[in-house]
């Protein structure tokens, strides 16, 4: 432990406190607001005088079928991520462990795809979704979501695949394993933490998606959560139900927050694997 001058320490802890306040403060305020109802919303005290759960119950009774939205989001995100991971496992083995011509170009293209703006494919995707009969159906969102989920999972899993020791693979070859057995019986047990964190990050990405969800779904029942929240309206055109909106936000954020905090080490390593080493 190195000796730090007293002033330095004070400044350090002050800065740390400020950072924590700025980071967590708004979220806490959001939670506080969600417990305020009626005119309490409009007074300036931070914490409600009599907190109530009315905003939360109103969510599930209101015009927007919030419960349905949650289910839709869960279904879409889960399907997208499961599909992407399945394909990404074999693809990342090829990219991470086999030398072949054109690999560099392929990886660069994958990166490029995940970088291009969603609107660039909007009209074409619109046409495709309609042709497949998936317009205005939540499950149809899996199609556009694959555009960014698949390259992302492949990219991250490739960096993890690369790290696996060569001799382990060779021992498996000597034991008579073909590539599929190597992936699923030898590498998978070592990779599953990476799969979890990659899956988690991909899930969060799919969960938060807004643009495609806004464009391709017009029926309230089929909407996903982000669009659902943005559409929560009050009894009249001029009344914005902030309390209810905050309640919805809390419900949506809490599980994500818990997941991210529990898995934070793995998530950080997943993110940085792509950036610092890639």
């Amino acid at each position, binding site marked *: 432990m190195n000796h730090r001058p007293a002033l330095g320490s004070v400044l350090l802890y002050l800065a740390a406190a400020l950072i924590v306040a700025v980071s967590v403060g708004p979220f806490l305020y959001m939670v506080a607001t969600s417990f305020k109802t009626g005119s309490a919303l409009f007074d300036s005290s931070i914490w409600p005088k009599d907190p109530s759960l009315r905003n939360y119950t109103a969510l599930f009774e209101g015009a927007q079928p919030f419960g349905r939205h949650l289910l839709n989001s869960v279904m879409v995100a889960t399907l997208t991520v499961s599909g992407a991971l399945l394909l990404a496992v074999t693809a990342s083995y090829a990219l991470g462990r086999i030398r072949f011509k054109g690999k560099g170009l392929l990886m660069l293209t994958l990166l490029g795809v995940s970088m291009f703006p969603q609107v660039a494919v909007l009209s074409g995707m619109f046409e495709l979704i309609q042709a497949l009969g998936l317009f205005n159906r939540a499950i149809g969102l899996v199609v556009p979501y694959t555009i960014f989920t698949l390259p992302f999972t492949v990219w991250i899993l490739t960096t993890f695949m690369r790290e696996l020791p060569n001799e382990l693979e060779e*021992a498996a070859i*000597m*034991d008579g394993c073909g590539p599929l*057995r190597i992936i699923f019986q030898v590498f998978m047990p070592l990779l599953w933490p990476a799969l979890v964190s990659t899956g988690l990050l991909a899930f969060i990405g799919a969960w938060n998606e807004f643009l495609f969800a806004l464009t391709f779904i017009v029926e309230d029942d089929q909407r996903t959560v982000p669009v659902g929240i943005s559409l929560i309206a009050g009894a009249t055109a001029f009344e914005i139900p902030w309390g209810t909106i905050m309640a919805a936000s809390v419900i949506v954020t809490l599980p994500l927050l818990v997941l991210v905090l529990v898995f934070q080490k793995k998530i950080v390593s997943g993110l940085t694997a792509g950036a610092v080493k890639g």
Partner: protein
Amino acid sequence: MSRIDFQQVNKRYGPSLPLTIKDATLTVEDGEFCVFVGPSGCGKSTLLRCVAGLEDITSGELLFNGQRMNDLPPAKRGVAMVFQSYALYPHMTVAQNMAFGLQVMGSDKAAIAAKVGAAADILQLTPLMDRLPKMLSGGQRQRVAIGRAIVKAPKVFLFDEPLSNLDAALRVQTRLEIAKLHHDLGSASMIYVTHDQVEAMTLANKIVLLHTGALIEQRGSVAQVGSPMTLYHRPASTFVAEFIGSPKMNLLPGKLLHAEAGHAQVEVAGQAVTAAVDAGGLAVGSAVQLGVRPEHLRVSVDGEGEGEGAGLPATLLHGERLGDSSLLYVNVGAGLPTLTVKVDGSVSRPAGSALMLRLLPEQLHLFDSAGQACRRTVDLPT
């Protein structure tokens, strides 16, 4: 039956890259313990991996008992490999590690259990069967790696520097165990790769010493094939002579004065020295190198041993005492390399003392200007 033939094997990693292995032609006999040894970059691991099937052979033939193996995948060759880092499956227990290969091959459970049990007995692994690799010591992991190989009852065992990750004491013990294993398993051949010439000398029936660097291109990959004693007593070139034996053989530049049947006279350091070699093929006056191992140089004190071989006056530069023996570094003349002399016991003379070295003819080697050895005419152990 486990005879391996290399016929003019060449290996190149890329079309524009130099040959890693050139014109390797050798035979590993049935049940032999053959050691591939050489300095780094000599391709010994590559050659081993060619036998395993983990590397392709660019040209040439690899035969097991006369059957061409070049295109067969590793699992179909009847070989088993022990890796340098053991390469145990981290998520499987010892028992599962050993059983895995057999499961992949489709053997039935009872047969697998029997074979695994037998191997565990031989290697004293039975109390460790349910442990994961991370709960084992280095030596124990080593044995599991060997057990994994035994279970497959291969015709050929391949060892890739298996002792290099162990500490010195464990290395000696494991070396003995491997020697015993070879003895017990009888019919299987073993190919063993190491950079340590002590392991080579002690374990091998046959040593294959491989060239490195430019010598590969000039002379082919194989420097010499022979028993340990052959390589020690009759090195085919200065490369072999300097690799085998520690400390290295001393080499003195000289000129051939005279060659007759069974003897040759050479001028080194201003002295005429007789060596028991056949230099018939060399021209008189040609440049040669006289070789003598540090342990074969005599230091005579006060004129003793007069008349036994040539006497070379020398000055002591520096002495190192190892307890059982001493190494003396001596100067025999300006521009000549420093000679190393190994003597028994503790010798403590001051630096600068004058010594007399005796070179006995039957202890000397002679090499031509290209480094090739002349045949020694003495009776030597094989």
